[in-house]
Every structure is written in structure tokens, then in C-alpha cells.
């Protein structure tokens, strides 16, 4: 069986700045794949390439379909949802509207407001609130819920633990098995290696726009990861 996502020889960047150099990864259905690496390694650029928001060459094939020429706004319809770094909730919308808009342009499926509230009960009392007045953890749960409303087959999580207290991060990562059980495959980008290794089936370590190491958490020693992470041999 082919992979759900196959990326080969990907060069990508913003304007004249190139962030990814001939990168290749693959992701299988039902997997949780972590992408770790230092700041500036190109992790977020990789996710932005998958959703179509950077200029790129190379090949991204999702479920047998080449995404290269498909505009960003149509990719959510293919089943690809990104939870962007910094949550990026719509400040003029209420929490409920933020969730609803996640499912505007996609077919109905397993996820709806009730299912999201079951996954993250902390959102329930906040539905009518403006989304810009909430705590980081609340915002992150809403951002993930908003992405789930699109019923993604591939959920991309960009730095969901950034700036959150460990107990809040724990709560968010505990939701992952439920998300995978709903039929989603997950790629998570993390700077926190410990969190990433704890959650992932497989890990790619990135350094300066390339994959420097890959394997399952069990295969990889802390030393090897540290070397691949910081580029010291």
C-alpha cells in the first residue's frame, strides 16, 4: 500500500529565502509522526508547503494525488488541516464561530461541535466568548477543534506546546489518541523533543532544511537525536 503522504525532493521557501533543500519524508495512514528540530530548521515551512502556502518545487503526493498545483484554499477539501503556530484564532469571531468556520468548506463527517466539546470539555463554557480573551491552553484547544471540524484525514500540528504550561500540554497530547481513532493521521512539529518522542510512532529530525535523522523513538538514542538536532557530531 502506498503512503498517505509522500514528499520527495522538496525545495521550498518564502520569496528569495529558501528554507527546505531536497527534503523527503513519508507518512502512513494512522501514524503520528513527529518532526523535531531547532528553531529555523524548516519544520513550519514543511507544514506550510503541505498546505500550499509557500513557493516550492519537488513533489508532494497525498493519497495518490499530486498537490503541487492545488491552491491552498482547496487543500482542506482534500482532508488536510493545519493548526498553525501561534493558534491564529479569528479574533473578531466568537469561540463557537471559530469552530464552525473550520467546517464551512468541507463535507460532514465524524467531527462536529459536540464531538469537539467532548474531546475538549474546557471549551464548552467558552462558546459565546470572543476568542482573543482566552488563555493559551484554551486557545490551543479551540484551534485544534477548529481544524478537526474540517474532518481532516491528515492533521498538521505546528508547535502546539509552545508557551503552554506542562499540565496544559499534557491535556492536549492526551487528546491525540482520540483524534487518531477518528481516522486522522497526525504530523506534529515540536521543539520539545521529550513531548514529541512520547507521542509519536516515528520521528524525523530536521537540520537546516534537510532530514538529519529518522526512525522510531525506540530506535533513536538521545545522543543521536541531540547530534541531529544541533548538528554536532
Amino acid at each position, binding site marked *: 500500500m502506498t503512503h498517505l503522504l509522500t514528499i520527495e525532493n522538496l525545495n521550498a521557501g518564502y520569496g528569495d529565502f529558501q528554507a527546505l533543500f531536497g527534503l523527503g519524508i513519508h507518512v502512513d495512514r494512522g501514524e503520528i509522526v513527529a518532526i523535531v528540530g531547532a528553531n529555523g530548521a524548516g519544520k513550519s515551512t514543511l507544514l506550510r508547503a503541505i*498546505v500550499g*502556502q509557500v513557493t516550492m518545487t519537488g513533489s508532494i503526493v497525498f493519497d495518490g494525488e499530486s498537490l503541487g498545483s492545488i*491552491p*491552498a*484554499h*482547496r487543500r*482542506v*477539501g482534500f482532508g488536510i*488541516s*493545519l493548526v*498553525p503556530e501561534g493558534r*491564529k484564532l*479569528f*479574533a*473578531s*469571531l466568537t469561540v463557537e*464561530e471559530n469552530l*464552525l*468556520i*473550520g467546517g*464551512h*468548506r*468541507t463535507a460532514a463527517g465524524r467531527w462536529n461541535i459536540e464531538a469537539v466539546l467532548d474531546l475538549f470539555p474546557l471549551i464548552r463554557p467558552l462558546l459565546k466568548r470572543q476568542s*482573543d480573551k482566552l488563555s493559551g491552553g484554551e486557545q490551543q484547544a479551540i484551534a485544534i477543534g*477548529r*481544524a478537526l471540524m*474540517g474532518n481532516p484525514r491528515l492533521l498538521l500540528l505546528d508547535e502546539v506546546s509552545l508557551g503552554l504550561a506542562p499540565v496544559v500540554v499534557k491535556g492536549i497530547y492526551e487528546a491525540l489518541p482520540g483524534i487518531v481513532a477518528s481516522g486522522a493521521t497526525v504530523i506534529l512539529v515540536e521543539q520539545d523533543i521529550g513531548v514529541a518522542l512520547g507521542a509519536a510512532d516515528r520521528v524525523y529530525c530536521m537540520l537546516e532544511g534537510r532530514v538529519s535523522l529518522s526512525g522510531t523513538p525506540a530506535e533513536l538514542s538521545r545522543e543521536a537525536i541531540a547530534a541531529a538536532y544541533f548538528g554536532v557530531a
Partner: protein
Amino acid sequence: MVWVNALIQGVLVGGLYALFATGLSLSFGVMRFVNLAHGDLAVLAAYLVLSWSGVVGGSYWLSMTLVVVVMAGIGYASQRGIFNFTLGADPLPGILASFGIGIVIQNALQEHFTATDKSIRLGSILTRSIKVTDDVSIGWFPLVILLVAVVVLSGLQLFLSFTKLGREFRATADDPKTAQLMGINDKHLYAVAMAIAFGAVALAGFFQGGRTTFAPTSGGLLLLFAFEAVVIGGLGSLWGTLAGGIVLGVTQSLANQQWIGSNSLAGHIVFLAVLAIRPSGLFGARERS
């Protein structure tokens, strides 16, 4: 009593200013875009109403309906074909592009219709009025304009607040990149906003052409009044724009009652005062940091 009358006339003309300002307010609110051709588009629409009335059997109202629809289409096309390419962190390309289009429109109108003043002769509705007292009467036509302005602006505001597409407009105004992640085509949405803006300004141009005379160069002052209404009311709020238009109209009317001919100046002074004291406008939300 003359003051009451001045107040009422101010509110009525304020409706027209608000209608002129609708498109500016919407395009600024949704895509942070200031269209300097806005006033010229109103004048263009007024000329088109005159020219096309023959096609629709001589009725200016029917002609206006046709013009509003066509202008909306032109609005969509010009956003997709021109203005979308000027959007970005720097507002200058959009300002320059629309300024250029405004000049092209003025000169094309000058070339085709000459510089002679024209007006849209709507007949008896222009002169009929409701007499309230000896000093106070309310003209039917200004009343119709005010009601249309209220319906258009409140309709748009309700559309933005309570419909699915309106929610997408607000989300895209907040953050177009993230809106794309929701499957929203921001370029298309901007063009829909511009279609509404062009349609509304065409309607305003028609009313202006019925109320008074116009010439190819009339657009500049209309743009200025529209801009003042938007700023006085508060950027990004359609209720504010309606209120801003009325504040501008009342200011001009009251000033003119006291010192004949001082209306425009008084409007500009209120505009500057609002900018200086309360730059977010009388009714606008404070800018989010």
C-alpha cells in the same frame, strides 16, 4: 423651527453620504484597501444610468437597477484582475492603482459626455414633500435615499454578523492566511466585497445624479465626503459609517443654516477634530493590538 428643519435636512443628506461611504467602509474593513476611484465610480454610474435608460424603455429606475448589477460585476472583475495584485503590507500600490483608474474614468467621461453638467430627471418625486409645519418639510426623494441607505447598511451589517459568508468575511479580514486554511478563497471573497462596494456606490451615484447636477470631475468631492463619513463613524464598522454619514450631513446643514456656504468647511473641521481627538472614530472599535 428653522433649526429643526436644518437638522432634519442634515439627517436626510447624511443618508446619501452614508451610502457613498458604504463601499469604502466595506473594502477598508475587509481588505484594508482604500479605493481612490470611489467617487469617480459614482459619477460613472450616474452617466451610465442616463445612457442606458433608452435601452430599458426610458425608466431611470430600471436603468439604475441594470447599472448597479453591471457595476457590481465590474467591481468583481477589477478586484480579481487588478486590485488583488496590489494588496499587501504596503498600501501604496493600491492607492496609486485606484488613483490612476479614477483619472482614466474622469477623462473617458470628459471625452464621451463632455464637461457639461448633467442630471437625472426623475420627475415629480424630486419636488414632492411631506409638509410637517410651515418651516419643516421632508422631501420624498431625500427620504427614499435615507431609507435605502439604512436598509443597505443595516442589511450588510446583519449579513456580516449572522450569515456563513459574513462570518468568512470577518475571518478573512482578521487573517487571510489562516482563512485559507479553512478553505476560504480570500481572493474571491475580496472580489465579492468589491462587487458589493461598486454596487452600493453606483446606487449612491444614481441618487446624487437625481438630487443635483454632476459632471465628469464631480467624483473628487464625493470621495472626500465618503471618506469623511467613514472616518467620523469609525473604520471597519458599518453602523459607524451610517452614523458618520449622518453626523457629517447634520454638521453641514446646521453650519449652512448659520453661515450660508460654510457647509463643506464645517464638515472638514468635524472630520479633522475626530481624527485628532478620537482617531478610531465616534463609533468604531478600538484597533486591536
